[in-house]
């Protein structure tokens, strides 16, 4: 398993590509939608953590979990679920999680972009 495989399931974007009739632009648009939205949500999360607003933290974590899992992300949904559960339990002091969360969001975005590029690029022999 490559490092990329540990961040994003290799099959999900490809399955979406095929289900959409081999429409690469559809997949690329999905990834772009996710990365744009994730960036905005991280800012919202930062504000919610600073304000110790559990409801907002839970909502942001839920949305990131939902959309990232639908695109095949693996680690980010698990981390989002932790954050969501802790916020739902009323835990207010969650600021220490922000940098880890932001890092994981960035990794997921990069991995999804790479997965989309791999769909458009013919596989070379022996490539994972």
């Amino acid at each position, binding site marked *: 398993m490559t490092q990329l495989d540990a961040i994003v399931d290799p099959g999900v974007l490809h399955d979406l590509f095929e289900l959409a009739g081999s429409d690469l632009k559809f997949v690329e648009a*999905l990834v772009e*939608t996710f990365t744009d939205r994730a960036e905005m949500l991280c800012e919202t999360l930062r504000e919610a953590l600073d304000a110790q607003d559990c409801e907002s933290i839970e909502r942001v974590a839920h949305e990131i979990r939902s959309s990232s899992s639908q695109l095949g992300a693996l680690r980010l949904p698990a981390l989002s679920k932790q954050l969501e559960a802790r916020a739902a339990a009323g835990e207010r002091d969650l600021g220490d999680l922000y940098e880890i969360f932001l890092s994981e969001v960035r990794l997921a975005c990069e991995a999804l972009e790479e997965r989309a590029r791999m769909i458009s690029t013919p596989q070379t022999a022996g490539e994972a």
Partner: protein
Amino acid sequence: MAFILLVEDDAVTSTILARMVEQAGHQVEIAKNGLAAIELLEAQDFAVLVTDMMMPRLGGQELCEQVRTGERNRDIPILVTTGMIDAERLAWVEMFDGVEVFSKPVDVTKLVERIDALSTP
């Protein structure tokens, strides 16, 4: 062709579901929250309602309650998509007829198959 109402505030999920449902030959209306969905349900008939659970301005559970007590589309089949794994938080589904749960991430093939089955006379 059937009219399907999709209620989902996550743009990625709504884009995927809408595309697959349209490819199956149906027409899709999208609402980003329960309140917007109520307005659409009061204005026209739909064959199936697909709704997320956690949304701002009226979530999935409250939407289902209002639909089942409303005038138009009262008996519409409802497919609830949710990432919740807590059975207690989903116990309310048992209170209503015609409500089914699909776990997230949604298996879009199975969801479309179910929509097809429910919208076929």
